């Protein structure tokens, strides 16, 4: 089934979809320009704007459901952005509205949570301004109807991510992590930009409407090139190999940021880009293969990194990488995978945000301690956090009937049909997930107390626990709701197309059983190592493999050796060359002229007679020359 036509639209909630972006943007502007005057109500305004944005999204969704499925792609023209290149317009369709709902709903909850989490930070207002800015940019990213506006949002979320990772900028590690995230993302943007240039050179338009509907007319070589370039962009934003290194460092930011930006929404933008550009990838088989390989490699790499981290947020970040790997893998398959990719993206948004906020709640209770080796036995003192975290945990490992079970197993089944090797690797990834997530839960909530003497853990205030509860409800039921009866696939079909044959749901397929068995094995192994046994306060040295995983698979070391050090060397060389070479040449020329004239001026001796002699000689020379020339 092919995507439907885009219908121009005005009026109703969809006609006012721009409010979704404008409201949080106004919030951010007021909070940033208002300065300290807005300190008192800054957080409330931030929450209000996020919730208002959610209301607009929900109303738009309801209105969209009112249309027949084939008429659910609604374009809204706003104004001419860059004449000749792009108009600023929005596209409200099942794909973008799904994202909008996720972003504004989870975003609003995290705004609420942050009221409690950031209560003691003197810069809380600025934090909410940045959060609002992020929501606005993210919504622009998914609502844009062309690649330029998408790119504006794309970089906007990058900026918000930069500002929020570096929110505690007085910490050099935070400032460095923020800078690293931005620069690595820029490497991805380099690919995306060139992809956009290629699209424009090929189609002379950048609107999704014109490009995607005509993608099949372009040569497969061009499409492959565009696809691979877009993939580079997606890798940067979604922390896929080989541009994954920034995500783990990004955990320097406040935890709500990690939950919203680096788990639930921004990092999934790459998946969105691939799914949105579906027609391009469908015409480029090589690009699709590369997408699936990147997905599988990242899902394994992220899972392996997750197994070795003692920092609770970094373990979760590894898990995020891995889960996005699943989504990218599914998105690489094509129409059969899109719905599962997005469905997993949405459920992941819920359960991962749930777990990150849970981790934040734990940190809040433990004086911002992130080392899991200093946790333990927290289930009794933080019952709400524990239960909600447990739900998130069960959802992510794919415990039957919870969200992850439907969406992740859906991806694995689809991949298995597509390519058995990729499928089994995905199953293996699920097994590792079972291990590292269990390890995390056991180390944090079970076992003996290993707290610092100063720690007095307590349950977090209601403003922080309620978002956890709501998110965990989503983590329980959303997967079943979306996947059963192919509800989500049918809903998405007008936007991204759908396979000719809708997949049937097999509760106990061989693949599903194998996955469950591996996950169970991983969980049991984790129980043996971290639940029953004593967890040492200092990390044991571990084998070569453990070190490998602890050092993020040597990703940073590789970047340093390949880019950073040669880069520093090149910079020094260039500065030297500029000062001594280019400028040296010019100054050398000047010095040469100066030196010559310094020597020549010695002729001026001050003796009148020598001047007279030179006059005579000159006159004689002229006369002689005249005689010679005259006689010729």
């Amino acid at each position, binding site marked *: 089934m092919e995507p439907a036509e885009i219908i121009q639209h005005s009026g109703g909630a969809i006609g006012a979809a721009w409010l979704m972006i404008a409201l949080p943007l106004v919030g951010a502007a007021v909070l*940033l320009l208002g*300065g300290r005057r807005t300190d008192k109500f800054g957080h409330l305004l931030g929450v209000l704007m996020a919730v208002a944005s959610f209301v607009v999204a929900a109303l738009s969704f309801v209105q969209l459901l009112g249309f027949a499925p084939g008429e659910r792609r609604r374009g809204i023209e706003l*104004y*001419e*952005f*860059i*004449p*000749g*290149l792009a108009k600023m317009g929005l596209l409200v369709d099942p794909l973008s509205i799904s994202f909008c709902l996720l972003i504004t709903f989870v975003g609003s909850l995290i705004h609420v949570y942050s009221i409690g989490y950031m209560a003691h930070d003197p810069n809380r207002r600025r934090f909410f301004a940045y959060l609002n800015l992020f929501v606005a940019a993210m919504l622009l990213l998914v609502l844009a109807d062309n690649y*330029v506006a998408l*790119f*504006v949002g*794309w*970089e*906007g979320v990058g*900026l918000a991510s*930069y500002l929020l990772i*570096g929110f505690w*900028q*007085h*910490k*050099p590690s935070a*400032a*460095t992590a923020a*800078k690293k995230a*931005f*620069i690595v993302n*820029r*490497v991805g*943007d*380099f690919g995306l*930009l*060139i992809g*956009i*240039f*290629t699209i*424009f*050179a*090929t*189609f*002379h*338009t950048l*609107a999704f409407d*014109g*490009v995607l509907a*005509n993608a099949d*007319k*372009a*040569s497969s070589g*061009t499409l492959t090139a565009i696809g691979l370039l877009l993939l580079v962009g997606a890798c940067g934003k979604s922390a896929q190999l080989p541009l994954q290194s920034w995500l783990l460092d990004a955990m320097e930011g406040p935890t709500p940021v990690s939950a919203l930006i680096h788990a639930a929404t921004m990092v999934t933008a790459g998946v969105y880009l691939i799914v949105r550009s579906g027609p391009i990838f469908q015409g480029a088989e090589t690009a699709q293969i590369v997408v699936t390989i990147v997905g599988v490699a990242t899902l394994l790499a992220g899972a392996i990194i997750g197994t070795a981290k003692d920092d609770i947020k970094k373990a979760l970040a590894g898990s995020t990488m891995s889960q996005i790997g699943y989504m990218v893998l599914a998105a690489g398959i094509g129409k059969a995978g899109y719905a599962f990719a997005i469905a997993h993206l949405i459920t992941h948004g819920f359960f991962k945000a749930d777990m990150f906020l849970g981790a934040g709640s734990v940190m809040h209770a433990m004086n911002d301690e992130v080392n899991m080796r200093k946790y333990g036995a927290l289930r009794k003192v933080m019952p709400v956090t524990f239960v909600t975290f447990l739900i998130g945990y069960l959802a992510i490992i794919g415990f039957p009937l919870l969200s992850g079970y439907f969406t992740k197993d859906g991806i694995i089944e689809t991949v298995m049909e597509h390519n058995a090797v990729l499928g089994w690797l995905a199953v293996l990834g699920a097994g590792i997930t079972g291990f590292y997530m269990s390890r995390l839960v056991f180390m944090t909530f079970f076992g003996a107390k290993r707290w610092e003497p100063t720690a007095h853990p307590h349950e977090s205030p209601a403003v922080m626990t309620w978002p956890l509860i709501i998110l965990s409800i989503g983590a329980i039921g959303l997967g079943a709701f979306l996947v059963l009866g192919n509800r989500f696939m049918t809903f998405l079909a007008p936007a991204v197309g759908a396979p000719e044959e809708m997949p049937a749901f097999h509760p106990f397929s061989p693949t599903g059983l194998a996955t469950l068995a591996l996950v169970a094995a991983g969980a049991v192994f984790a129980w043996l190592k971290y639940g029953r046994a004593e967890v040492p306060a200092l990390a044991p040295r571990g084998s070569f493999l453990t070190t490998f995983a602890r050092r993020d698979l040597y990703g940073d070391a590789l970047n340093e050796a390949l880019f950073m050090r040669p880069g520093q060397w*090149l*910079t*020094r060389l*260039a*500065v030297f060359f*500029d000062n001594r070479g*280019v*400028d040296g040449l*010019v100054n050398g020329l*000047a010095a040469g002229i100066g030196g010559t004239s310094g020597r020549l001026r010695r002729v001026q001796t001050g003796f009148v007679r020598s001047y007279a002699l030179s006059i005579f000689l000159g006159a004689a020379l002229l006369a002689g020359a005249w005689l010679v020339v005259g006689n010729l």
Partner: protein
Amino acid sequence: MPWLSTLMGVSVLGALGVTLVRNDKLAKQFTLVVSLIVLALTVAMAVQFSPNGDKFQFAETYDWIPAFGVHYGVAVDGIALVLILLSVILVPIVVLASWHDAEAGKRSVRTYFSLLLVLEAMMIGVFAATDVFLFYVFFEAMLIPMYFMIGSYGGAQRSYAAVKFLLYSLFGGLLMLVAVIALYSIAGKGTFMFTDLVGTIQDVTTQKWLFLGFFIAFAIKAPLWPFHTWLPDAAAQAPAGAAVLLVGVLDKVGTYGMLRFCLELFPDAAKFFTPLVITLSVIGIVYGAIVAIGQTDMKRLIAYTSVSHFGFIAMGVFAMTTTAGAGATLYMVNHGFSTGALFLIAGFLIYRRGSQYIADYGGVQKVAPILAGTFLVAGLSSLSLPGLSTFVSEFMVLTGTFQRYVVPSVIATVGVILAAIYILWMYQRTMNGPTAESVKSLPDLNAREKWVVAPLVALLLVFGFYPKPLLDVIHPAVQDTLSSVSVTDPQPAVPVAQEGQ
């Protein structure tokens, strides 16, 4: 109404008036008022400009030296108009920003502001001149006020920097003078009027020589790699306000000249030299950015970023597609705002602490959040963050260039990554981390400084989301220029029917 002459006249009279005022404070206020009047007049002129009307509007032509066909001829097309707008917007901002800059100078405060207004008149003149000889006169005369501004009010190495600046520019200018005279005599029209000279040189070899005469002058002015080393010295030694006008406006005369004179007067030569120019531009983009990363002095760093940005502009001019050409013109304007903001805020910072070296700062964000925030915005505009106007122009330049020259465009896009490195690294070293002892008591921006920064940031933001007003003026002028070079835009591989195009 003779708009352009009025603009210049008001500036010159203002400059004379300032010298008569005895009180320094009054002189500053008077200068500000004069520059605001000029701004108001220019805006009044700009709204009457009709983008799709005649190519040159508000034309005034009088004989100046009839024996040689030299005229006082001024008029503007879309390209010149936006650049004049840029100049007159920057001048009041610079006046306000350099309120205390001239006090430590070798000459009086009055002289500084008088020179500023003289410079303003010349900047308007150089963009408006339609007579090649008049253009040359303004091109060279501009050096004089700038020479004194650097040489008398600059930093420790000001004499070196001022002389270097003057010699480089004079060298290029004299080459151009030779070419101007040769153009006059070879064309044999007995006139220096630009419109009469277009298309008169048919011989390709002659075109090439004359092209080089003009181009080297503009390449030094712009500056393109490898003629750039005067800029870091001059910009680092000049007082912040003068640096803004130097990099923001004076250097634009170089790229403007390429677009106006090199392309239109010598189309065949321009096409012949395009590979060379594009290569120099791409080298400049990457090289300027890499050298910028390695700088330890804030003002030199900003100057090197400009070397990189001028590479983008020159590349856009010589890519010869409508998108790239319009993008390059827009880039000239945006770069003025962006680098202007960067120089001025860095200037505020340096004024407070008394050091240009990045290593002397750290953690300023904590003590002066507004200063740091605006510095970040200016920095982000320098790395072309979408949502700020510089993105629009850089995107247009790269897209337009990509249509014709894929590889240079791809290499130039590397500049986007490098830009992130030099800006964010500088920002991190100065503004983030633990607050350095020496900046603990640094005051935040005061009201005057906020008024300096606010219009620049506002312009960057407004044109970042809505560049149409500028582009509507620029597009027809660029199309006209390209059609006189007789190039057409490349066609798409897959034509997509679009309404309204």
